[in-house]
């Protein structure tokens, strides 16, 4: 048996010094590149990942939706699209980025939804969506929607006046306010695992605000059932107030005897109040409320007092210092 001796290795097979040094250099460079990649990866976690999201799938139209011509006057302003309204949402239960709700609420199940009515009223109990809509005409109303973050949309909601439902609940004379809660479903709502807000999300209205004809319980959008990211199956629209008052996916309505502490006020009382009336004269402590960007437009618009609904609502606030009660 022939055994090759080490000397049999030809000198040409020995890696030249320059080459292995280059290899070391290469390994170092590769190491640096890998390190940089990890670094960039870590930093990427520090912001929203930008990508287009799919708008809500279309579904069969709701039966018997009637446009309300008196409530469709937006001074000729153009309605925002289905895509805009269902991909750009603040709904922290499904994540803090605007495109999170569209993605993370996709499998949210709202079958058999019940709204629990309690407090100072005669007709306490659990109401299904069908119960709530019984005998009602669902109206289409085109409302301006102004977010406290200074963007806005024009949205064709389908709903019923909240006052109709409240009357059926027969609140007692002691009830001064209505408190609403969003469902808190830790299984289906990934956003509630973070403590960014106190859950469940709570909002409230004074009784006269709740009874105002502009205040509606919304069950549809563009004539279709309300998409999950917009607060399915039932939400509030109070068009003269900032969007955070428009509580979504309501599962609890309570008639109470004092002003409820709403979630955003609890989170930052110097920035968000109970009333949250749209008011260009009272700035957010950190940004101006004098103008707003309508989604889809480049130039901003001047924000209107009470979001343009002053004629209908300002009499409710004649005795209120709007600077203090923001």
């Amino acid at each position, binding site marked *: 048996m022939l055994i090759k001796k080490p000397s049999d290795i030809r000198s040409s097979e020995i890696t030249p010094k*320059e*080459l292995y040094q*280059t290899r070391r*250099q290469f390994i*170092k*460079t590769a190491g*640096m590149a890998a*390190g*940089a990649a990890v*670094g*960039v990866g*870590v*930093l990427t*976690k*520090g*912001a*929203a990942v*930008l*990508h*287009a*999201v799919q708008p809500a799938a279309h579904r069969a139209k709701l039966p018997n939706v009637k446009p309300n011509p008196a409530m469709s006057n937006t001074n000729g302003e153009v309605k925002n699209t289905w*895509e*805009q309204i269902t*991909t*750009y949402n603040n709904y*922290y239960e499904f994540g*803090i980025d*605007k*495109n999170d709700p569209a993605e993370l609420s996709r499998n949210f199940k709202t079958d058999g939804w019940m709204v629990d009515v309690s407090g100072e009223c005669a007709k306490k109990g659990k109401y299904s969506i069908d119960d709530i809509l019984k005998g009602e005409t669902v109206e289409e109303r085109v409302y301006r929607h102004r977010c406290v*973050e200074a*963007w806005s949309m024009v949205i064709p909601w389908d709903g019923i006046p909240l006052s109709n439902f409240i009357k059926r609940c027969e609140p007692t004379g002691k009830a001064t306010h209505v408190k609403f809660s969003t469902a808190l479903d830790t299984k289906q709502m990934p956003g509630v695992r*973070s403590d*960014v*807000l106190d859950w469940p999300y709570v909002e409230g209205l004074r009784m006269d605000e709740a009874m105002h004809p502009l205040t509606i319980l919304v069950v549809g959008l563009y004539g279709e059932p309300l998409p999950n990211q917009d607060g399915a199956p039932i939400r509030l629209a109070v068009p003269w107030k900032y969007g955070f008052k428009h509580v979504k996916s309501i599962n609890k309505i309570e008639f109470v005897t004092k002003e409820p502490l709403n979630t*955003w006020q609890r*989170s*930052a009382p110097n920035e968000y109040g109970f009333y949250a009336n749209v008011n260009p004269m009272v700035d957010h402590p*950190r*940004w*101006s409320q004098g*103008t707003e*960007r309508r*989604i*889809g437009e*480049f*130039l*901003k*618009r*001047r924000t209107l007092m009470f979001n343009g609904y002053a004629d209908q609502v300002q009499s409710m606030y004649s005795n209120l210092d709007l600077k203090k009660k923001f």
Partner: protein
Amino acid sequence: MVDRTKVIRFVAKPIFFLAALGPAVYLTWAALTNHLSANPLSDVTNETGVWTLRFICITLLVTPLRNVTGWNALVRFRRMAGLYAFFYGTLHFLTYVILDRFAGLVDFPDGIVSLTTAHNLTTSIIGDIAMRPFITVGFTAFVLMIPLAITSTTGWIRRLGGKRWALLHRLVYATAIAGVVHYWWLVKADIRRPMIYGAIVAVLLGFRLVRKIRSVRVKAALRLKPDPTTIR
């Protein structure tokens, strides 16, 4: 044979240059092809801001990484990283001027291109910087980068002298802190993201502080120790 200086100059640096340009290219493409959210103007503003902060972090990472790994070649990427921070910071400032201030003028009584518009825009920017703390601190962070960008050339290093140049460029510490504060003050409720950057900047600046304290101690110890040659 392959020269490491040449590898860095002709391979690694161009790769870094192109990679760092990536976010701007992606953002432009996404904005033009409708791949951003329903509020693309807000996305562009946010993203350019976040990328400024990221490049500030990358710039600040060079020295600690070099000290830990001994890869001195890293320092050759520092200027580019810093200039990219300035690049994204400039884009961020311009988006603020155009998308926030200019678009927020609402009225253009003498037409869009007019002295009145220029005057109103200037007043609006100055007023905003003076009135809103998170803008004040963000603007400060940006302005502090300007002298650093100007004096980033080899000529300026020579003119200032290494020590004075290094001292001047410590302004980037202030930019980093102001940048984090700017981010912290603008978010609505979720401070997790600003906190991540705050933590990174704290670690990177803390590293320097610890080293500084150590070196001062070592120097002091050396001074105390009597030189054996002078012992009588």
